[in-house]
């Protein structure tokens, strides 16, 4: 039982990274109907920006905060300059664009920062020790990642549910034309969505680097697949679904590694196929996802 709980906690920590990335995917999907395949590479790129800042003598947490701001601005700029041209057009154009961004940003990261191994973060951002809670060892890093995720999710919830700006963001996603008619600058709301998604991705990237050093330009590729699986599992339209989906995938993957004593799944090879299998099953069985909205409506 102790081992089980321990693996659940560790799974929640990696799951929260998937959840953050998935949340970014959901925010963009809800507002623009675009599945952003570049979400993971955006995160990698911003993580390397953080590395550069640290390399120039900025402290880790200072670089962390600065990177979020840079990612936010970068996401907005990306939407305003490139993505807006395909919004409202055919879905396939948008898909090709985000896959193109995926390749472009991946290439840029490899080109600017070369594909060499870097140790990042320089020091562990969280203490390496662990707490003992009734025999269950909870690493401070896992707890830290979970805590930051919880704070971010609560902040986002407050932004979307409690502020006028959040109401405008939701309205723009639900009915862009009606939103413009009440005076909301929908274009900027969509850009803001991209900014928020990029910032969430940056946190996911930074935590991925912290949890699996060294820094690697391809580190977000598997995370993107898990995040996509999480988003599809929860329902692409549902932020709660993305979080629950991400945590669930993190925990399940971790438990499989721990208890798979018979089949000996080669997890490093099998993780991604399993994530795809999860996506496939959800799409076949319940395309709206577990938390997908079923809008009630009278005509």
């Amino acid at each position: 039982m102790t081992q089980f709980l321990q693996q659940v906690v560790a799974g929640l920590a990696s799951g929260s990274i998937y959840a953050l990335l998935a949340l970014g995917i959901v925010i963009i999907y809800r507002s623009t109907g675009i599945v952003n395949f570049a979400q993971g590479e955006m995160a990698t790129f911003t993580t390397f920006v953080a590395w550069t800042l640290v390399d120039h003598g900025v402290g880790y947490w200072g670089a962390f905060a600065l990177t979020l701001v840079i990612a936010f601005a970068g996401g907005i700029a990306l939407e305003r300059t490139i993505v807006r041209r395909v919004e409202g057009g055919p879905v396939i154009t948008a898909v090709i664009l985000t896959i193109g961004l995926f390749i472009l940003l991946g290439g840029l990261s490899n080109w600017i920062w070369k594909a060499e191994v870097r140790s990042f973060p320089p020091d562990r951002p969280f203490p390496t020790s662990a707490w003992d809670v009734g025999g269950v060892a909870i690493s401070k890093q896992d707890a830290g990642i979970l805590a930051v995720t919880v704070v971010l999710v609560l902040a986002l919830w407050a932004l979307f549910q409690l502020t006028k700006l959040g109401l405008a963001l939701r309205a723009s996603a639900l009915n862009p034309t009606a939103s413009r008619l009440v005076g909301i600058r929908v274009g900027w709301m969509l850009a803001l969505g991209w900014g928020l998604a990029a910032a969430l991705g940056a946190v996911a990237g930074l935590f991925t680097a912290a949890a699996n050093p060294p820094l690697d330009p391809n580190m977000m590729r598997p995370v993107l697949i898990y995040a996509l699986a999480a988003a599809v599992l929860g329902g692409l339209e549902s932020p709660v679904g993305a979080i629950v989906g991400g945590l669930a995938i993190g925990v399940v993957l971790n438990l499989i590694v721990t208890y798979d004593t018979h089949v000996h799944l080669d997890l490093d090879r099998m993780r991604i196929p399993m994530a795809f299998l999860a996506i496939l099953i959800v799409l076949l069985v319940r395309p709206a996802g577990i938390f997908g909205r079923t809008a009630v409506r009278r005509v």
Partner: protein
Amino acid sequence: MTPLLELEDVEARYGPVRALHGVSLSVGEGEVVAVLGGNGAGKTTTLRAISGLVSTAGEVRFAGERISRASPERVARAGIAHVPEGRGLFNELSVYDNLRLGAFLQRSGFDEDYERVRAHFPWLEDRRDQQAGTLSGGEQQMLAIARALMARPRLLLLDEPSLGLAPLVVREIFAILGDLNEKEGLAVLVVEQNAKLALRSSSRAYVLEVGRVALEGPSAELAENESVRKAYLGY
């Protein structure tokens, strides 16, 4: 006196298809003006052209300001509220949130505006937490109008408020509109298929045919016009 809203030779197109071929019309301060016409005559497009939802050529002026080719956001800021075809509600949001969005451009005075709107639609308060999409058709239309009023508009654009509603409900809605016009001096440009009702509730009217103004004049005169009667009133 210059009119509140003035369209001069407005053309509009959806891609290669021209929907308006030079429409000129005006709405005076505090005036109710109706636009009649069959399906595809360009009624909805006329409203969309005013709001900047469709690309246009020609001049649109509102309260002395040129708003041709302005974005819908800017037109809303200028003081025009548009209740579009299909009502344009946020179906998934509550009645109250829909009203809050109506007041999006207002920095203050929400409570006063809410009270003012509630005086016309008292049932809103009982339903404030209900999802807008679950209201009846008549209630949805009223909510759409109420939301438009939250923006404190000088001009209300209404696209077929009677569509799909029972006659009794339609009468109620037009009674409220008459009230708003009389008591608050709200100017209204209403597009309607229900010509009889539209002519009775407006002071002037335009008849659109294939993207052009075919007839215009005081509503009472148009109601007597032989061809209007045959084509739109059915007697």
